[in-house]
């Protein structure tokens, strides 16, 4: 009984390993060329966004806030250009920039 339970636990763990981290990866960039949090915030504010917080994830700036349509979203930004790569609203992707090499 205990054995099958442990097996089930391991199964549920292994099934999630693949997408345990963020859903988006930015291209490799030199850390020195990154925009600062303030620069990212200013750029987004100018475009009609509101930023509540941000963190690094998958080589991107991951920003939490409100987009110009007043939706509560998470956005992945290119860390050097500040270009919005992906926007998701409560887990639903509402914007995705497709790379030319994809």
């Amino acid at each position: 009984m205990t054995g099958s339970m442990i097996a089930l636990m391991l199964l549920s763990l292994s099934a999630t390993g693949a997408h345990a981290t963020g859903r988006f990866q930015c291209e490799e960039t030199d850390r020195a060329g990154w925009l600062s949090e303030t620069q990212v915030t200013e750029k987004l504010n100018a475009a009609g966004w509101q930023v509540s917080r941000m963190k690094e994830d998958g080589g991107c700036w991951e920003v939490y806030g409100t987009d110009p349509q007043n939706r509560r979203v998470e956005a992945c930004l290119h860390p050097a250009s500040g270009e919005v790569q992906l926007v998701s609203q409560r887990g639903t992707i509402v914007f995705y920039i497709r790379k030319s090499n994809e």
Partner: protein
Amino acid sequence: MRHILPGSDFWRWMRRRRRYFGVAAFGYALLHTTLYLTDMGSPGAVPAEVALPAIWTGWLGFTLLVPLALTSNDAMLIRLGRHWRLLQKLTYPAAIAILAHWLLIHDGAAAALVQFGLLAALQVMRPRNTPKQMET
């Protein structure tokens, strides 16, 4: 639980208090929903995103817990009689809705699946011939 921990008084302790656990779960859901509504700020923002899968599953889970919380007192338990037990089965669709809500809203599914994996394991191991005694 009785089958995993034979001879342990812990499962019995938990079993005797399971109505409290249920009420605590609702209390947590209520707090979670209140914080969500506060975080959303403007009242218009809430209906604007209610159609998103990650959001309506959350509302569904919460709504299913409301009748359970309202009938969690002794008076309702006595008044509803055997229907009370039937009503408790709402916890299953509520659990499924909450799992969906959790999986959809988050990037990482690990935490949700670990917790629900354990619940599913307990469910699988549950003896089919549980005596139908009136327990709360």
